[in-house]
Every structure is written in structure tokens, then in C-alpha cells.
């Protein structure tokens, strides 16, 4: 085995993750390879430096409030979902009633009514087309079930 093949064992040795057999094998290689011994020494130095760095923990108060922060977001998410559904329903209903009034109003010119209906028909076609495209690509997505 070349020195390069021992890099995995070197990391395991450094982090005390090797089995007794792997450890013995690596130590045997180390005894006859000053290059790897030098590299290991440098890694040990780096590990000593890195191990000295610890991250600042937030105050206890923040940990006590942590769950309520998560819970509030969950609750607000539900609130927004309900609000959005209600807003969409009301908009559709209001829009439908407004269009109905315009169509039935004898004072509104026919050309305007036709334009409005054509606009709505166009919007409906676009919506269905985008929806159908989304469904098609979602069904073909090979990764949709990955990592659940």
C-alpha cells in the first residue's frame, strides 16, 4: 500500500476510531515511514489547536424560550395557511359576484363583457396549463421520495 492509502487510517488513528487490528497495522506503517509520521505530527498539532476553540453558548434564558419560539412559529404557520385559504376563497367569491354583476348589467357595453370573459378564459387556460406541467414534472421527478 502507498502512503496515500493510509490517509483514512491516519484520520482514524488521530481520532481514536480504529480497531486494535487497524491500529497495529497503521503503527507498523508509521514506524517505517517518516513522511506519514511527520504528517501525523502536524495533524496532531492542528487538532490540539482546533480542540481549544469552543463555541459560545447562548444564555440559559434563550434555551428556556427556545421551545416557545418554535411553537409560536408552528402556530403562526397554521394561522397563515388558514388566512391564505380564506383570502383565496373570499377573493374568488367576490370576483365571481363582481363579474356576474357586470355581465348582467344592461348598461355595460357588450364589447367590454366579451373582453372580460375572454380575459378570464385566458387566465383559466394558463392556470390549467401550468398546473398540468407541474404535475407532469412532479410525477417524473426521480428524487421526490429520496431521504424521507
Amino acid at each position: 500500500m502507498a502512503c496515500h492509502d493510509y490517509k483514512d487510517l491516519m484520520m482514524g488513528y488521530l481520532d481514536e476510531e480504529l480497531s486494535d487490528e487497524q491500529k497495529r497495522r497503521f503503527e507498523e506503517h508509521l514506524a517505517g515511514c517518516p513522511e506519514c509520521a511527520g504528517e501525523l505530527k502536524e495533524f496532531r498539532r492542528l487538532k490540539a489547536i482546533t480542540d481549544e476553540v469552543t463555541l459560545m453558548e447562548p444564555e440559559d434564558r434563550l434555551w428556556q424560550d427556545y421551545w416557545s419560539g418554535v411553537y409560536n412559529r408552528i402556530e403562526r404557520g397554521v394561522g397563515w395557511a388558514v388566512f391564505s385559504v380564506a383570502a383565496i376563497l373570499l377573493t374568488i367569491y367576490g370576483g365571481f359576484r363582481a363579474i356576474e354583476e357586470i355581465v348582467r348589467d344592461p348598461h355595460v357595453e357588450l364589447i367590454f363583457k366579451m373582453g372580460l370573459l375572454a380575459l378570464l378564459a385566458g387566465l383559466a387556460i394558463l392556470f390549467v396549463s401550468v398546473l398540468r406541467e407541474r404535475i407532469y414534472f412532479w410525477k417524473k421527478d426521480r428524487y421526490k421520495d429520496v431521504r424521507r
Partner: protein
Amino acid sequence: MSSVCQEEAIAMRRCRRGSPEAFEVLVNRYMKDAYCIALGLVGDREDAMDLSQEAFVRAYRNIKHVKPGRKFFPWFYQILKNLCVSHLRKRRHRQAASLDAEGCPEAAATEDCFSPEAVADRNEMKDRVWQAIGKLDDKHREVIILRHFQNMSYDEISEALFCNKGTVTSRLYYARKRLEELLGTANGGCINGVS
């Protein structure tokens, strides 16, 4: 199965049925890990707190999709990591855009700025190490954080990263090599007296 795993499996089952109380058990168990990992990945305390909480919210919304018998943390880690990576991408984009706007496009490919306030008992050496960690690639930084700051074993890291142990050791090797380069400790160089 250990009692901790059993308790977690029960909590996950109850979460799937929509129990926030059960989810609180999981949040309390993993909130510190989540915060520290997010801090290690994005380098800013406020962002880390916000992203770790957001990851829990997304986990709660999607927990019904987790297959029974799967551990919570490796799955949750993927959500947290994706959020952090996406946050970093936006931050880099903003930094690049602002530097572009200032008329120095050569500096636009900027590295992440890791705030030194994230480090406990600060000194010059620790600040330099922290800054160097901030300059690592995302995948290299990730293994350094999990190994050095979370003290995770190779098995735990490979489970969290969905890769084999060989990939973990290989990434650790190249991450440490890069750290040595950044800190100038390779080939006998020293940093603040550590030699």
C-alpha cells in the same frame, strides 16, 4: 433498543399523529446540537438561533413523511443543513452584489465572514482558527464542525451525511489539510506559539 432511542421512537410516533407536546421532547433534546451545528455552518449567533428554530418548524411539518424506525437526528440534520446552505448562498449573493455595486467585482467572490463573537474565551489564535474554518468549503466545514464541535463519532457523522465512513475520513483528511494551509501550520509553521 436503548431507552433513549425508545423514547425518541415513541415521541416521533406521537408527532406523526400531530402532538406538539411530543415534538417538544425532541426539540429539548436536540436544540443545543442544532444551534451549535448551525453556528458552525453559518458563523453568526443570531442567524444560527433563527435557522435552528426554523429547521425544527419544518421538521414538525414534515415528520409524517419520515419512515417508521428511522432516527430523528440524521433526518433533521438534512433539513438544518439545507437551510444553512441556502442561507449562506443568499448571503454570498448579497455580499457579491454589494461589492459589485461598489465597483470592485474582483472582490465579489468573497468568503464567508465568520463573526468572532461566536467563539468562547476568545484570543487571537482562536479567532484565526474560527476565521479559517469559515473559509473552508461547505462540505469540509461540515465534517470539522461535526467532529470537533459536536464530538460525533465517524459512524454518527456518516449516518448524518448519508455517506460511508470512508467518505467521512477522506473529507476530514482534506478538510484538515486545507485548515493547515489556511493557518500556516503545515511544514512546521506555528500559530501563536503552538508548535
